[in-house]
């Protein structure tokens, strides 16, 4: 890819004014005092972003972080309060499927109307019409009024129209999770096709796995600011850590309120069997020692410590804890050190994370650190994937 930028966002901020009045009377009565009835809300603050051709960018972040606002700004639907958004090429936005559908018109009429809204001419629609209907798989109902469609049929037809538009930039907002599984797969295939054709895709989603699967870049937004921008793996790590921090705060608050014990991990160290420490690099089949340090501010009774191994994207590969290992831990208060040894790890080449957890025996979480430490495994280049096996081949 040469890096021609197709979207250039420069220092964009967006302020929403939340007014509490709407009618003429209210405005006249409150005239001059209207600032009392206004609230400012900065949905985006000083966002800079450049997207080059052919890349697929995932915009991720917690609810209300400004993802959709940014997407609408790229689509020209909202105007930035300050800063500028520039584009190259033709843009199509899938912000809501079937936004232009009219319930009283037939499927056929709606296809033409919706295609026209997305920027296709009548002739182009004529040419793609059969393909659209075929893709949607609702041919028998194409001349039925749309109001009689099931929601699945509605979405199928809308998506079919949308993917037959020929955009250079495609904006997608949370619309991939539609239809049944077979149709979803069809949609995802289509999006992969778009990637191969060098189209630029900007995706807003909460499906982090989708980001990991499709995007070659992920941008994390939080409270209207870009907090991470890079490979999906790194961005997801930042986002997951944030989610975890928020969740942990909530758990702590609840714990305090419920009088549950307070304790947290204060340190972790990894050591491979060959003695490497820090961010150790293991050979396939080598063992790993995980040492953890905890600090309990209130006494722990009936408690467990667990460790697990996950991929960098957060998929759990392995996990164990003291209960499963048949160890009963004594009452504990203050600092403490514990050690797990995980022998003969049959892991394939790649990077892995260690997760640690502190739970009560009734299942309540006391402290969980999803990516407490990292290590990598060097394979022999004879396999791929997270699992290692002794593979042999024979012709019979």
């Amino acid at each position: 890819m040469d890096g021609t930028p197709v979207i250039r966002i420069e220092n964009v901020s967006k302020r929403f004014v939340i007014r509490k009045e709407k009618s003429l009377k209210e405005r006249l009565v409150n005239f001059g005092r209207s600032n009392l009835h206004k609230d400012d809300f900065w949905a985006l603050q000083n966002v800079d972003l450049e997207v080059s051709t052919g890349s697929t960018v995932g915009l991720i972040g917690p609810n209300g972080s400004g993802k959709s606002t940014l997407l609408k700004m790229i689509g020209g639907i909202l105007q930035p309060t300050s800063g500028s958004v520039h584009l190259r090429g033709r843009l199509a936005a899938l912000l809501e499927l079937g936004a232009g559908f009219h319930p009283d018109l037939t499927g056929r009429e709606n296809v033409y109307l919706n295609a026209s809204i997305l920027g296709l001419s009548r002739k182009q629609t004529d040419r793609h019409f059969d393909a659209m209907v075929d893709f949607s798989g609702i041919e028998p109902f194409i001349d039925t009024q749309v109001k009689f469609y099931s929601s699945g049929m509605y979405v199928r037809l809308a998506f079919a129209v949308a993917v037959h538009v020929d955009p250079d930039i495609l904006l997608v907002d949370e619309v991939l999770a539609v239809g049944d599984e077979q149709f979803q797969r069809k949609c995802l295939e289509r999006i992969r096709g778009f990637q191969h054709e060098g189209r630029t895709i900007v995706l807003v989603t909460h499906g982090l796995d989708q980001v990991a699967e499709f995007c070659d870049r992920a941008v994390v937004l939080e409270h209207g600011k870009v907090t991470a921008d890079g490979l999906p793996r790194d961005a997801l790590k930042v986002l997951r850590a944030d989610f975890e921090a928020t969740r942990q705060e909530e758990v702590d608050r609840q714990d305090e309120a419920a009088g549950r014990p307070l304790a947290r991990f204060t340190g972790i160290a990894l050591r491979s069997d060959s003695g490497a420490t820090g961010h150790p690099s293991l050979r396939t089949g080598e063992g790993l020692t995980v040492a953890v340090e905890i600090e309990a501010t209130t006494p722990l009774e009936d408690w467990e410590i667990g460790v697990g191994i996950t991929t960098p994207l957060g998929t759990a590969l392995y996990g164990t804890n003291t209960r499963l290992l048949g160890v009963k831990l004594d009452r504990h208060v203050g600092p403490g050190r514990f050690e797990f040894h995980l022998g003969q790890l049959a892991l394939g080449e790649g990077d892995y994370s260690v997760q640690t957890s502190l739970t009560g025996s009734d299942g309540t979480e006391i402290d969980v650190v999803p990516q407490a430490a990292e290590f990598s495994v060097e394979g022999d280049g004879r396999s791929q994937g997270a699992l290692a096996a002794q593979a042999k081949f024979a012709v019979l």
Partner: protein
Amino acid sequence: MTDTATTRTDTATARAVRLAAEPLREAGPRPGFATGTLSSLRDIAAHSELMGFLVRRELKSRYKDSALGFLWSLIRPLAMLLIYYVALGKFLGAARSIPDFAIFIYTGLTAWGLFNEIVTVGTASIVANSGLIKKVYLPREVFPLSAVGSAVFSFLIQLGILIAATAVVGRFPTGIRWFYFPLSLAVLLVFSTALALLLSAVNVYLRDVGYLVEVALMILFWGSPIVYSWSLVHRQLLKYPTLEQLYLLNPITLVVCGFQRTFWVAGDAQPFQVTALGERLGIALVVGVLLLWVCQRTFARLQANFAQEL
């Protein structure tokens, strides 16, 4: 496998090369009050096909599932004609001083109907299409303009009936009379479109506009010589020439008089006529075009915040 791989990269490179040659453009509508006119016009022209679809959608959905369908767009004005003809013409005796009273009334109602529909439907058009405006970027002018389109369609049907009626009563308009029709129609369209654009945009910020428009239209209806003749007004205002000039400043008065000059052939026998109607209409047209421009620019300014205000 390698074949498809190379073609893929070919499309991708071709696209990248084509895009590299394109200049960066600003997302959404271009700013600038005076400078944006041309680009606005170009944007609207590029979406003329979409406007056609929207007009068709409007018309199709309006009478869908009704047994009489398009006949309804005739029944309403005909019922109004009947009411005014019987109540005003016969009971109040207006028909005595106005020859061919039915033609007279129907001419006025046809012109008024077009103005009324463009302004009412146009004002509501942006709010009514909020679902679309919040989700897709289009030049938002297409919504009020498609309201104009669907109103013109019902107008054409009524006009057909009016022309047929003049033939039936045996006083079909001929010659120089037809000069007034396109001129007044142009004035009517320009003013109503300007109002529709302005009001639809203001309606987004202040929903009171819809109700305000209803009241204003009612006043305007009785402020124009639709169900009474200009002669009656003239007689009352003889001593107050300023008031009469004020009355004639109303473009709808001029439009209705222009329509009547064309289609109400029996009106020639009236004792008083509006003087210099052609000139007045010409001036109104120039003012109307200026107003249309100002309204469009105001619309362009206001539309930037539509999506967040709806």
